[in-house]
């Protein structure tokens, strides 16, 4: 099992709190929306997390002003 940070793009407004809380995981694009660092394809929507980032990710889920973030477990395939 691996924890992923899911970004609901239909809710996200690019306020940038998550990128501050997870600077090693998320960057921001021209318009302020989060970009997963070093990830390609759909891993930019379901971002795999290292255990060290879990706590900060939980904080980001709680503080996201648009409730656009969620954590979920995905079986490693």
């Amino acid at each position, binding site marked *: 099992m691996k924890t992923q940070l*899911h*970004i*609901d*793009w*239909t*809710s*996200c*407004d*690019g306020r940038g709190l998550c990128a501050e809380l997870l600077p090693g995981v998320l960057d921001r*694009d*021209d*318009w*302020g*929306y989060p*970009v997963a660092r070093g*990830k*390609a*394809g*759909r*891993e*930019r*929507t379901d971002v795999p997390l290292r255990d060290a980032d879990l706590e900060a990710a939980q904080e980001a889920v709680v503080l996201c002003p648009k409730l656009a973030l*969620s954590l*979920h477990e995905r079986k490693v395939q």
Partner: protein
Amino acid sequence: MSQANDTYPPVPMQEGTRQEPRLLAAGPDAGWAQHLDTFGTWEPHTAGPGLLEELAAAGLTGRGGAAFETWRKATAAAGSGRKGMFPGRPVVVANGAEGEQLSFKDRTLLAHAPHLVLDGLMALAEALGGASTYVYAPAAGLPRVQQAISERPRGKRIRLVQSPETFISGESSAVVNMIAHGSAVPTDQRRRLSESGLNGRPTLVVNVETLAQVALIARYGAPWFRHAGTPTDPGTRLVSVSGPAPARDVVLEVPGGAQLSAVLEEAGMDPAALSAVLVGGYHGRWVRPAGHALSPVGPPARTARPGAGVIHALDLQACGIQATARMVSYLADQSARQCGPCMFGLPAMASVLNRIAGGETNHRLASELDRLGKLVTGRGACRHPEGTTGLVSSALEVFAPDFRAHLSGYCTGPGGAAA
């Protein structure tokens, strides 16, 4: 460019080609009697779980664009339907939405062979243990489907839902959203539709051509299906072929792995007189007309992924950059404006591309286009951003000399602003 909704391209004459017609074998406007005459009597409601195994053996992939293996998708939905304390009855949706302006094979199929689609829909629903069934199609296609349903002894419980004429209306989560809430825009998918779709029930959204193929496989078996095509791309597929006049828009049924140049010739075009071909539609890629096989799998240098079966040829005189710029502007305009990267990124890409097409000689524009494309991919509820990026990156590749010409101040085609 777009087809009038009430006129359908004629059923193609297949004389002189290697592929016998399968899906459109019953001829134009085939009614219930012609359908039975051509394909034989068969009771779709007798299909069982064995159908999924047959689909696996046949190796049928989705004909709506993603080319995902149909049996895998169906098995996932069947599995989710059995899970939990209150297992939800699965849902199967026949997806006939064709937002793509260059695609017309699905509406042709629904007009001429609706019974084959309904056979496939009912059989798949039965194989999932009695799923609810829907047909989702544009307004122009629904009366024919309704008529076909009334001709049949069974199938009265199939519900019809009208799809709007937007590019994104056929995206599977948009289909489910339209049926559930009347809004055909994609939704965030934390869970797959096969796990939790319409009203939380396991939902299968299947392209209408795929369902027609299911009906044939259920009747004649996997070995018959694999008789056409190649081992990696078995069976046949419908393609919507369009190109420069005098070539007419035509729907062809071609075997898997068919050579693109052969398909173009069959549609009445000379591959040598074409500069490039758009394969897979607005979310597809530009390729050179020669040396490509149509197949969802294979080395990218020699294969073109057919996607939803769109083949659109550009003649030697037309400017590929201007053609692509028009398409990207359209795609940017068709964004549902829900997801930031799509809402802002696609117009930005269209703007840069239009500046190049318009003759602006700023060499940073090409790299900016590339950067924006890489920025938006993978970041949306649906795949509209990466589909658009794929089109643009193929244009940068195939029209590389034209880009250099534009950025140096001249256009190789007529009517170029920088000519």
